[in-house]
């Protein structure tokens, strides 16, 4: 049978037309949605925290879209994993802005990753809202037109809060610092020194330790010998547990005010019962399972059974509120244009979040929505984080 090339060509053309139609249709549908980018660590050691942020944003988007969306359009989340790597975070941010055309970005779990994205966000004029990383220079970045906002704790404010806590609750006069040896520890060394200087107080020493140090007794003994009557602790879960174990070994019972590091995992399993002595800050806590956000979480993610399954709740709440604030700004701006959204961020009114109600949360001098007055001191009791009441 002779070949009929013309038919084949026609078939190919028809096929190509069908293919392009098929791909064009969903593209048209997606064009209508406003894309919000997420850059966070979704794998590796911080994956659980990345998951908390994703859950918070997802719930907020469900609520906003359920109420009719923003500017009559639905909001759509586009996620990218930065693997806690600043280089990968920057590439992800570029891709979200330049290829996906996101209206704004939420993200930054690790301070170094956020710091890598900040100059790009400012250059590209795309609002970037941090729900986690607490490094002070992320929002205080010196840019003339600052596109970086945050709904989370800030190192400088945390340091002020934990200093005030040790002084007022325990009458501490000469606290010592035990800090993880990385940029996060350094950022807090500055903040704590500033907070002590403000009160005309002296410290009993600044000691650093590595995240894989087994024995922190030498550093702690130095602080004890120098007369420390309280400790500032800045480190993630596992290294914080090593500090508690070392204190146990020394038999040194001293008040500890900590950054929120211990909240991110199985702290009391690692540190033992003495882990409950560590008092740390949080921006939000679930106190009972009837909380509307917890109920919504359980409905959306059936694997959540108890309050212990949603640690750290802070990440969920910060991301939830950040998304609501962003949606309010886009609505107010009346467009998805970066500079317009930025301007609208300064005019947000009456947004009811889970942490608080936001009225003018941002100014050009302070792009942080949460301050020391929003922090709650908490500790672990039988594996759950509970607020400290005095």
């Amino acid at each position, binding site marked *: 049978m002779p070949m009929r090339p013309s038919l084949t060509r026609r078939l190919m053309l028809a096929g190509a037309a069908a293919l392009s139609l098929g791909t064009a249709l969903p593209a048209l549908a997606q064009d209508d949605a406003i894309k919000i980018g997420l850059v966070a660590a979704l794998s590796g050691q911080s994956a659980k925290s990345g998951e908390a942020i994703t859950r918070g944003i997802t719930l907020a988007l469900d609520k906003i879209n359920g109420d009719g969306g923003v500017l009559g359009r639905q909001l759509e989340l586009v996620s990218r994993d930065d693997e806690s790597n600043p280089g990968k975070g920057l590439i992800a941010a570029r891709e979200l802005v330049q290829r996906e055309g996101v209206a704004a970005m939420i993200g930054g779990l690790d301070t170094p990753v956020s710091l890598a994205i900040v100059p790009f966000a400012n250059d590209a004029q795309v609002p970037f809202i941090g729900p986690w990383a607490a490094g002070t220079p992320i929002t205080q970045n010196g840019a003339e037109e600052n596109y970086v906002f945050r709904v989370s704790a800030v190192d400088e404010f945390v340091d002020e809060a934990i200093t005030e806590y040790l002084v007022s609750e325990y009458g501490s006069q000469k606290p010592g610092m035990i800090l993880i040896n990385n940029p996060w520890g350094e950022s807090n060394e500055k903040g704590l020194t500033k907070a002590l200087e403000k009160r005309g107080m002296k410290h009993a020493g600044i000691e650093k330790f590595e995240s*894989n140090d087994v024995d922190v007794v*030498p*550093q702690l003994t130095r602080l004890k010998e120098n007369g420390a009557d309280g400790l500032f602790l800045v480190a993630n*879960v596992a290294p914080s547990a*090593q500090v508690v*174990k070392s204190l146990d*070994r*020394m*038999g040194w019972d001293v008040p500890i005010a900590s950054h929120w590091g211990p909240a991110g995992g199985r702290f009391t399993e690692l540190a033992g019962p003495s882990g409950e002595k560590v008092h740390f800050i949080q921006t939000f806590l679930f106190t009972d399972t009837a909380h509307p956000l917890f109920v919504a979480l359980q409905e959306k993610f059936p694997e959540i059974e108890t309050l212990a399954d949603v640690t750290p709740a802070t990440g969920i709440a910060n991301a939830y509120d950040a998304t609501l604030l962003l949606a309010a700004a886009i609505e107010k701006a009346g467009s998805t244009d970066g500079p317009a959204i930025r301007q609208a961020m300064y005019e947000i009114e009456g947004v009811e979040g889970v942490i608080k109600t936001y009225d003018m949360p941002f100014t050009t001098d302070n792009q942080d929505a949460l301050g020391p007055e929003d922090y709650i001191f908490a500790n672990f009791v039988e594996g759950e984080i509970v607020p400290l009441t005095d």
Partner: protein
Amino acid sequence: MTLFVTALVTGIGLGAMYGLIALGFQITYSVCSRVNFAQGSMVMLGAVLGFVLTQRAGLPVIVAYPLALLGCGLMGMLVELCLVRPFAVRGSEAWLMATVAGGILLDNTVLFTFGNEPRSLPSPLVETSWQILGTGVFPQQLLIPVAAIGCAVALQLLFRRTRQGRALLAVVQNPDAARLMGINTTLMISGSFALSAMLAGAAGLLIAPLFSVHSDMGTLFGIKAFAVAILGGMTSAWGVMIAGFLYGLVEAFVTTYLGSSHTYILTFALLIAVLAVKPHGLFGQAALRKV
């Protein structure tokens, strides 16, 4: 006085740990002039297997820990078979990179299977601390030097008193002659890697209750233990053990008296200085190379 005792207790505990892991480098180096650079991952494997067998499978320690060590031994043999032998028989030095890569592979496999959250391996020996001269010590910390010295003595006896040990020594001295005398050198080399990994696994099980169990817990130990093995001279078991204690003590005394920011700078600078004066380590002997 308190500072001195603190540094001494910490230094001996850490030093014994470094020595025990470094002993593993010494054994394989003595037998075949090669080492398993995934030694740090073997430390982690011991602790992770110990955790999984006792906490998840619910086995008693007396059964679980020997099984964990057996697992480490098998992994050591696998490393030799897949990552060292194929390169060694072709005269290539690529085993060096292959064992490093193997360690990274193992760490990441554990990360995905065991999980990314650090876990705690309980032990009754860390529940209460004993106060001695102003500082505290967990009974578990005293167990480490005892176990480390015990292992060194056992190894010495193995080499000197048993047939297999003498066969190992024969391989060390002259592999070709040993092969002609009917000694299975391939098996001996494989066995030395198994023994080396088991020592690292034992170190992992001993340190885990004082630390936490996670996929990269062994990395820093592996690096420091290699430094200790070099310092001790690679060829002498006792030398390596003593070097372990020295390294641990220097580290603890520098941290205690000068502060933690000086620890790595001073200990590694001292290591380089010692090696500049004694290139074959403190207790090593220059190898004779016949031309």
